[in-house]
């Protein structure tokens, strides 16, 4: 058998794997005595055989394939997720309001109706107040509290909200600048459309007491 046959049959690989018959092995070894190329092959296959890792090691050590965009995908996707969730959180909180600092919220009980329903009580606000919260107690259970402008139209929902508490009182929340620009008339509306005036409030910035 000549060198070309040994090469084409991958005899060096078979030799290292102890696949050759005694006669084939002797032939190949005698050939190898004068063939440095086949010696190179045998050495290489012996190294491969000797250092062949177990399959699980091959899997575990499989090198990370660097992608064309530099392998920053994990970091980029993490950053993207952070940005999206942050943005979503901001929008939700903006919609829900209030994510207000307590110093930016002014809280009042509905002033007693001592004068006529058209006379407005001015609520004193700090200069940085952004919201006014008004508690309205003593509303009939089948009534709800609404805020209207001077023409009797209900204020836009984006500028105020009203909700009932467990104790039967109502909490109304206004944008502070709304009350500074226009008064809000409060009324208790019954199921049949009946309406009872609860008073009128507006707001103005006032210096701190003392």
């Amino acid at each position: 058998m000549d060198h070309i046959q040994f090469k084409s049959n991958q005899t060096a690989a078979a030799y290292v794997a102890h696949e050759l018959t005694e006669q084939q092995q002797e032939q190949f070894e005698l050939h190898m005595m004068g063939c440095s190329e086949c010696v190179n092959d045998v050495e290489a296959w012996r190294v491969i055989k000797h250092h062949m890792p177990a399959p699980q090691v091959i899997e575990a050590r499989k090198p990370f394939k660097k992608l064309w965009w530099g392998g920053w995908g994990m970091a980029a996707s993490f950053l993207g997720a952070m940005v999206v969730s942050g943005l979503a959180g901001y929008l939700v909180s903006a919609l829900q309001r209030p994510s207000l600092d307590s110093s930016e919220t002014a809280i009042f009980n509905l002033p007693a109706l001592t004068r006529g329903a058209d006379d407005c009580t001015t609520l004193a606000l700090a200069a940085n107040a952004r919201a006014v919260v008004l508690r309205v107690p003593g509303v009939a259970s089948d009534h709800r509290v609404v805020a209207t402008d001077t023409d009797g139209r209900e204020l836009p929902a984006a500028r105020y909200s009203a909700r009932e508490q467990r104790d039967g009182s109502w909490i109304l929340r206004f944008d502070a600048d709304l009350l500074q620009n226009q008064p809000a008339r409060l009324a208790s509306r019954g199921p049949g459309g009946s309406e009872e005036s609860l008073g009128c409030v507006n707001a103005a910035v006032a210096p701190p007491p003392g």
Partner: protein
Amino acid sequence: MTYSDSLTEAAAVSPDAGDALLAAAVAARGELQDEIYVRYRRPLMQVFLQRRIDRDAAQDLLQRTFLQAIKKIRTEGLDDPGNLGGYLYRTACKLATAYWRGELARRMDHDGELLSNLHDTALSLEESLDHDLRAKCVRELMAKLPMARDREVLERFYLKEEARSAIRESMNLTELQFNQVLWRARQRFAEILRKQGFAGSDAEAHSMDG
């Protein structure tokens, strides 16, 4: 027939006149024994390793082989000086057999004068790259094989030491396809070794291209 006669005859009729000249040179000038060592050390080492003799013992047997050959050349001459490689091979095989029969002394008596000049700059693959680097190269090879099928063939052939016929049958591979898997792996390993600066990997890569 004298040694000179046999040498003359061998040089005239043997196609491998290099061996005969080398044997004559060794007989005449001791320093040329280095050339024998450089030429035959690596294939003879593979002969020992193939017989499952560990590397240290193989190194010892290698020294014995050359010692016997040099003594033989200097004292009696070779029956067929044109077949120096064959003589070394037969000597190595006999020593390997004697080793496994326990017929060799644990440590040989080194002949300092004969072996003092035996050194080699042409290192084998295992001598050129340290253990960790070789293991890394093989792991890289396994990771870079393009198909899972190729990995499976190598694992079964060298790790599990399954017979080629069994692998071919279970994976439905022809002999040609099986050899192509080995050829691809050898090519890739040569590339990996070249990157590590192992020059011995060049020859086989080019020769396989043709």
